[in-house]
């Protein structure tokens, strides 16, 4: 027996509401899923691929740097960077605060680093401090649980094994900048790769850097590598054997000591840079760590300018060293015959001014040879008056002054050789005849770099043959181990007659070896050295500076000395400048002598 069904007509009448709702729901879902899976599937498939596939760069092994004898100067050691994975930070502010406390960098610095994050991929570590110490590492490890998202990355770090020695020449490395990155169109570099930022590291970065490798990996949502699909191995950089001789470099740097200045030594037979010292040095191990704004500012604003490579960027008036140029011009132009004598009474009245000789008592009657040996100013005032500034400049240019030597180092300065046209355009004024007298003895507007002076004396020693100065002795191909030696590149001959060079060389020999020569202090028992002293005035004698003040070191003259040896068969040319060293003979000449002797002992003279 069936129970009578209750009368539910009213209820059943309303059921279509439910049915319509359910069918509608179904249709909406099917349409939406269909839209995602049928119409948009290509788009989402691509997104899914890019989600899971990532190309991770592999840092290439940077080439090593040796000196010419195979002494290791720069290599790579394990280093550790402190990084933050933004996506893993639980509480950004408190974590940053804690890290700042732990390793002593300011929160501002950390935030600046995080804000400058390059757009790479999710879960990419952002470096907040490079090359942390073992102690800092231990502190971070001990507090790991308090600072989730902070990680230590193991990387390869550049280490310079001889401290600050030759720091300007070697330079330093650092993370690639956006501007540097923009120069590359291929994928041989990537954001975050270490590249050279100064010195050899910078100019020869293409040799040293190598080529980045890449790893195609499948990653999960947390950036963990799940599978490696393919690896393109990085190509390691090539090693560089520098032309410098570390022992010679050390002699030069020890001799410079705490003085500011530069020493450049060139192998006259091929242009190899045997020594390049610039003091004060900078700590390139520290600079390779990437400094914080404050540390960087302190370096830039340091009055002793440690970042300057004085050997190629320091511009100094050459002082009496320039008399070599004036002498060459006078002989070549025939304005003063070598045997013509003039009488020096300790100065020369020209126009309304009395131009003094450094020796107030005067040199008496001198011809060219003695004028160079004793560095008689009056002789060269006269020579200058006869030549005129433009003719002096002409020979200065022939000897390589006033323009870059083209050495393979960044930011070389050109110096300045004044001419009448230069004065018209730069100073908007006519050349004043008296100015020529200053130029003739290397004062006034004349500015030169130590490397230019080294090239000048090298050209004279070589009787005009000029080799391209270069810092690299050989490159060793990392793949096949072969060393490639660069042949010396002759860049031209100075248009000066052989006899003139002979006269000059003989006079320069006299400077060091003759009685009364200004460079007698450089006289050597090992070899005959030829040279020229120079004293560059830092301040023109101005009456408004008191005598007391003038005794201060910063107002003392720069001491210069250029030399070559042996005179008969030149092998090495040296230029030395000691800032505020006083007379060139006393401060600079001994340094040049030590370097020359060091080299000649070495090459077996």
């Amino acid at each position, binding site marked *: 027996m069936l129970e009578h069904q209750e009368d539910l007509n009213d209820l059943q009448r309303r059921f279509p509401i*439910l049915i319509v709702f*359910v069918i509608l*729901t179904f249709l909406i879902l*099917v349409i*939406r*899923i269909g839209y995602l899976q049928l119409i948009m599937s290509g788009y989402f498939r691509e997104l899914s691929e890019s989600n*899971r596939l990532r190309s991770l760069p592999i840092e290439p092994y940077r080439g090593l740097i040796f000196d010419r004898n195979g002494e290791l100067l720069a290599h790579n050691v394990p280093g550790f960077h402190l990084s933050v994975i933004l996506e893993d930070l639980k509480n950004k502010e408190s974590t940053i605060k804690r890290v700042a406390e732990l390793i002593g960098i300011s929160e501002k610095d950390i935030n600046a680093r995080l804000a400058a994050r390059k757009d790479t991929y999710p879960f990419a570590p952002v470096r907040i401090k490079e090359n942390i110490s073992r102690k800092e590492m231990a502190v971070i490890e001990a507090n790991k649980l308090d600072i989730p998202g902070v990680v230590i990355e193991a990387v390869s770090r550049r280490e310079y094994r001889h401290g600050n020695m030759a720091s300007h020449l070697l330079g330093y490395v650092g993370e690639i900048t956006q501007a540097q990155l923009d120069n590359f169109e291929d994928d041989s570099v990537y954001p975050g790769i270490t590249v050279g930022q100064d010195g050899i590291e910078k100019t020869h970065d293409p040799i040293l850097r190598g080529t980045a490798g890449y790893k195609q990996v499948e990653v999960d*949502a947390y950036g963990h590598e799940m599978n490696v699909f393919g690896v393109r191995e990085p190509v390691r950089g090539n090693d560089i054997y520098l032309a410098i001789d570390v022992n010679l470099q050390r002699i030069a740097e020890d001799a410079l000591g705490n003085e500011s200045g530069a020493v450049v030594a060139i192998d006259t037979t091929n242009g190899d840079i045997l020594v390049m010292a610039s003091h004060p040095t900078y700590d390139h191990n520290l600079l390779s760590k990437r400094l914080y704004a404050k540390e960087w500012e302190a370096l830039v604003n340091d009055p002793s300018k440690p970042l300057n490579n004085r050997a190629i960027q320091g511009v100094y008036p050459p002082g009496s060293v320039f008399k070599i140029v004036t002498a060459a011009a006078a002989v070549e132009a025939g304005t003063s015959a070598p045997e013509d004598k003039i009488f020096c009474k300790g100065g020369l009245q020209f126009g309304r001014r009395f131009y003094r000789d450094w020796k107030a008592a005067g040199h008496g009657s001198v011809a060219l040879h003695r004028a160079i040996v004793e560095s008689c100013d009056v002789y060269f005032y006269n020579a200058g008056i006869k030549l005129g500034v433009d003719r002096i400049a002409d020979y200065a240019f022939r000897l390589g002054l006033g323009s870059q030597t083209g050495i393979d180092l960044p930011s070389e300065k050109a110096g300045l050789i004044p001419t009448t046209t230069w004065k018209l355009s730069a100073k908007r004024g006519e050349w004043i005849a008296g100015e020529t007298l200053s130029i003739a003895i290397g004062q006034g507007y004349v500015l030169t770099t130590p490397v230019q002076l080294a090239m000048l004396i090298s050209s004279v020693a070589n009787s005009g043959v000029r080799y391209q100065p270069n810092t690299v002795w050989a490159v060793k191909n990392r793949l096949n181990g072969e060393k490639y030696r660069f042949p010396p590149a002759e860049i031209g001959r100075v248009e000066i007659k052989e006899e003139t060079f002979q006269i000059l060389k003989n006079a320069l020999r006299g400077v060091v070896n003759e009685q009364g020569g200004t460079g007698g202090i450089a006289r050597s028992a090992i070899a005959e050295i030829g040279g020229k002293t120079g004293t560059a005035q830092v301040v023109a004698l101005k009456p408004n500076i008191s005598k007391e003040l003038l005794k201060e070191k910063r107002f003392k003259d720069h001491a210069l000395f250029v030399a070559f040896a042996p005179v008969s068969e030149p092998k090495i040319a040296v230029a030395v400048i000691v800032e505020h060293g006083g007379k060139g003979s006393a401060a600079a000449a001994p340094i040049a002598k030590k370097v020359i002797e060091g080299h000649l002992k070495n090459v077996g003279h």
Partner: protein
Amino acid sequence: MLDIKQIYNFEWKFLGVILLISGIGILTIFSATYGFAPHSTPYYQKQLYWIAIGLMFLFLAATIDYHTIVKYAYVIYAVTIILLIVVLIKGRTGLGAQRWLSLGLFSFQPSELAKIAMIILLARYFSDKKIKTGFGMKDMILPATLLLIPVGLILKQPDLGTALLLSFIFLMIILIAGIRMKTILTTLFVCILTIPFIAHFFWGMLKGYQKNRILAFFDPEMDPQGIGYHIIQSKIAIGSGGLFGKGLLQGTQNKLKFIPEKHTDFIFSVFAEEWGFIGAFILLTIYLVLILWGITIAYKAKDREGALLAAGVVCMLSFYLIVNVGMTAGIMPVVGIPLPLMSYGGTSIITTMVALGLLINVKMRRLLLFY
């Protein structure tokens, strides 16, 4: 009350559909958690146990005469309210919400019980009053109050999804039970006036993560690594499945953990990635069959209690389906609603099984034989 002969009236085919969906669920959970070495029993195996336990609840809910159940509606309701208060005072917190009550061996969520209790309560209330011309405003006061008490308590946990579900069931039931046009219009008017106030009130009750999820629903690209992440990754999973899918265990979005809560709330994304549109369409169709079958049971119910009870269950299942699948497809906010019978988790399985048991219960007693 218990009658062994009822076994002949049991809906075996309906049970077949339930088992089919559960089976698909286990397979998908297996795929979703494949390769992640679990420290204990794997999820798919545990889900198997939960389904077994759920089936026992289903049989229990089917055997006890629903008239008896409906008779105790107010008692069940009162117990539920007490448990909801207890859980607020001393409950276990999980995922930022206080929902769990520890019962020694296992924990359970009183808010799950509230879903069933509310369906039973509404069936009772609207079948007691046999008004054929539709209910008026006065008749709505009591059920609305009875709704708002658990809704308030559940929002306080906070569990937005369940609170919305209860309100949805209430609305659908009064529509089916019959309500005067005038009452609907009045309610609408009152709602429009009070919505800003109520919205503000509810917004204040939400926890930060819930607000974020709702905001992310409106603009998922706002923070692709943060709150919009779930939705974007789920859409990528579904979309990249294409027509045929990537195949079982081949879903890269799933395997590489890009899909969040992949074996629970986002199980549909895993399924759609691996089986494509064809699979998703078939799965949705099976759900449609289940729900339409439920509507038929409600339509053919012997009495008002049965019809409303079944309708309530149908509403619950429909709500689950559209909110969950809609969420994975990016057309619904992420409110933490599981996919019935497929999402991993004992609580959701048991609630669904009990609700389906009630459906079978109504169907079985449609043609009651008297001796």
